[in-house]
């Protein structure tokens, strides 16, 4: 089934591309590849969703470690709370 530009826009606004069923993704992919009107815009939306999808996988695996950690003050406060509550 061929999708219209509006259907592609609606589907991408309501669902994450990489969580859609493969048959829906294929029809969307075909539209985006051949559509000169909305193709580039929606390809960028999908590229971004792919980035978020991959980010979440890396986050799950714990292999993104920005130089950001709990402050010493918060760490101490939480440690004290944990001792009390245990």
């Amino acid at each position, binding site marked *: 089934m061929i999708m219209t530009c509006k259907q592609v826009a*609606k589907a991408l606004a309501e669902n994450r591309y990489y969580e859609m069923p493969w048959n829906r993704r294929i029809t969307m992919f075909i539209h985006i590849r051949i559509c000169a009107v909305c193709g580039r815009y929606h390809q960028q939306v999908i590229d971004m969703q792919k980035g978020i999808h*991959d980010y979440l996988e890396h986050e799950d695996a714990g292999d993104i470690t920005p130089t950001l950690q*709990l402050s010493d003050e*918060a760490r101490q406060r939480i440690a004290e709370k944990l001792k009390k509550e245990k």
Partner: protein
Amino acid sequence: MNDKLLHDPESWLDEHGDYLFRYAYVRLRNRAAAEDAVQETFLAGIKAYDRYDEKTPVRYWLRGILHHKVVDYIRKAAREIAVDDSEDHEILDRFKYKAFGIPSQQPAPWKFDPKHAYEQKEFWEIFYRCMAGLKESMGLAFTMRELEGLSTEEICKELRIKPNNLWVLLHRARAQLKECLEAHWITPEGTEQ
């Protein structure tokens, strides 16, 4: 030795504190709120520890609790901020979205190849920093939709906005994220784009 003994709550802070803090920070974009969410997660974890069934590693079990804390915080924050939709009509008109769902102006192409960048380990720290830099209502909408996977209806209800306004917020968030990534990601030398 079973998992429960291996994961005494007193060790949670050292083993999972920073991981959970980074998870909360990129979603809440507020250090104090993220630290509070981690603390509340540990305290809720202690209370619910008897129900921990060891089927999932304790880190993911705690993260599941944190997910609810994050969404609760966002709900409260959403009540306190007024979403500025004064520019929304202009953007919607420009995109002719209501009628056709298509942009009347093509976006600028990527300044780097995203598929290639996604394969580079260093890229994800920049991605993290750029997501953490999204502002207020735009950031809240982005977290709820893209990171936590809430439905359009739920988000519109929480932010008290219409689906078209949500679409504009997400459009703006993606544009800001793209701009930030393009400003900070430099393709490593010697690799093809």
